[in-house]
């Protein structure tokens, strides 16, 4: 029942449709028990680190005018448990693209995690998060410098065999194109963008920051135009494929993101408001395409 009008090929990985729940907003896949996961083009799993992590204390979530801040802080069972239990359990019920999202606090950690993930046949794509703003002295540093981002890219590319490596970029930079190009030159097979924007809320009652970590990553509908702008800039400057992410909440947003240059589109925070978001977006794509005179989604990638 695959609708070929929706299918895309992302760095050699064929997907039934371009819609992918974004890392951190869909657990390890099986947490979602409200619909058959096989409707999804791919699933980007919760960020995984070398060691197990509980993450930050509560509160980890704060509301914003059209989105939210989070400082979950990479809660995960560690790469070994992730590969031994989470990925195989998901593969048992899911046939689409499984994307492992890897985070690290040092070059060695990225390399070790990616090497182990590379050996796992159930993983189709490795997405390297160099942009998580939540962890002190961690991810942020890599994603905010072209040199550091390129170092991570070439180090993980050396150990990953037989599957594409996407680098997930931070928007908290002056020139995202420079960093994107540095990753491409270092051998990245693709780029995911954007991660969350650094933000803060203060409680008027306590006069203190709302989040335990004081700052958190801003996501949700409000960041959509920032994401579209960055995807457009990067997709036009690089020749590797882009997964667009940030504020996507409808089939129209998916189409706009693809017009900006995305080959696949991640849906993050909208899953938190509406657990059926991805399924409903995929279901409404054909009708929206008809309305806009789009024959096949691949026709519109980067047309803007």
């Amino acid at each position, binding site marked *: 029942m695959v609708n070929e009008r929706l299918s895309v090929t992302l760095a050699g990985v064929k997907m039934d449709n371009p819609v992918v729940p974004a890392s951190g907003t869909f657990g390890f896949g099986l*947490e*979602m028990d409200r619909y058959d996961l096989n409707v999804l083009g791919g699933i980007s799993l919760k960020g995984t680190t070398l060691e197990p992590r*509980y993450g930050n204390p*509560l509160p*980890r*979530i704060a*509301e914003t005018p059209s989105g939210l801040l*989070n400082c979950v802080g990479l809660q995960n069972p560690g790469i070994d448990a992730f590969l031994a239990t989470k990925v195989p359990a998901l593969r048992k019920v899911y046939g689409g693209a499984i994307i492992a999202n890897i985070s690290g606090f040092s070059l060695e950690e990225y390399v070790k995690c990616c090497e182990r993930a590379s050996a796992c046949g159930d993983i189709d794509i490795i997405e390297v998060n160099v942009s998580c703003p939540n962890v002190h002295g961690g991810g942020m540093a890599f994603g905010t410098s072209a040199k550091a981002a390129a170092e991570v890219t070439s180090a993980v590319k050396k150990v990953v065999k037989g599957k594409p490596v996407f680098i997930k970029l931070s928007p908290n930079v002056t020139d995202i194109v420079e960093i994107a190009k540095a990753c491409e030159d270092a051998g990245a097979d693709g780029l995911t963008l954007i991660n969350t924007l650094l933000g803060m809320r203060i409680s008027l009652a306590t006069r203190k920051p709302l989040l335990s970590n004081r700052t958190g990553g801003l996501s949700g509908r409000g960041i959509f135009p920032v994401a579209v702008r960055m995807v457009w800039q990067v997709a036009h400057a690089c020749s590797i494929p882009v997964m667009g992410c940030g504020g996507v909440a409808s089939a129209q947003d998916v189409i706009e993101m693809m017009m900006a240059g995305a080959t696949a589109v991640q849906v993050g925070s909208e899953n938190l408001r509406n657990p059926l978001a991805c399924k409903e977006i995929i279901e409404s794509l054909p009708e929206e395409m008809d309305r806009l005179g789009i024959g096949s989604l691949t026709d519109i990638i980067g047309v803007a």
Partner: protein
Amino acid sequence: MIFTVTSNGQAASGTFRMVLSSPEYHGSARGGQFAYILLPGYYLRRPFAISDCGEGWLEIIYCTVGNGTRELSGMAPGTRLDVLADLGHGFDIRATKDAAVLFGGGAGIAPLKLLARELAAAGKKVTAIFGFNRAVDIPEAIMDEIRSSGAEVLIATMDGSAGTKGFVTDALREHGCSFDYWYSCGPLPMMKAVCKAVDCGGQVSMEARMGCGTGICYGCSIMTAKGARRVCKDGPVFDREDIIW
């Protein structure tokens, strides 16, 4: 699921109750489960314990503490709201052998109302002890409904304007009821005090700022004696021993 507000009114100072109905809803909530309500104009949903339910409807009891709950209190019958119902794991009534005490404070009375009805229907003896600041904070009509579902209701107020002066634990001491299990929902210090004062087993309902409410974002994880657990999905009800007080 889309629900329609059928009634919404003040129950006590700063406390309201709302009944929401939908033909698709079958009154399947257990005490302690919550409804996650999307308010127009707000990005995140708001969690509220389901305080009662039946075929086609559910009830919430809420305190106005911020912009969202204030707006909720002004919603007229006929307003349509997007609700995720019956989220999380509720209280386990099978843990009670013969007699249970329910300790509630403030908005914490909400899930205990439904729980009291379930326990009484299962033939257990139920005593509910509720703590408030002042007599004007007591939703009298709701207290009466809990009594008529078969529970004894005892009151404690901080200023002594109704019932026992002091905390729910003071009311327990004063009345000295016998029971083999307890349940609690309310401010953390209250639940902590109950834990200290009572030896037998019990369950508590925890609160956390939530993202998804459905277990996919890990925004509400607390560290328990059994490891990290999501308040929205693994809870909100936990065994007393699992909470690291």
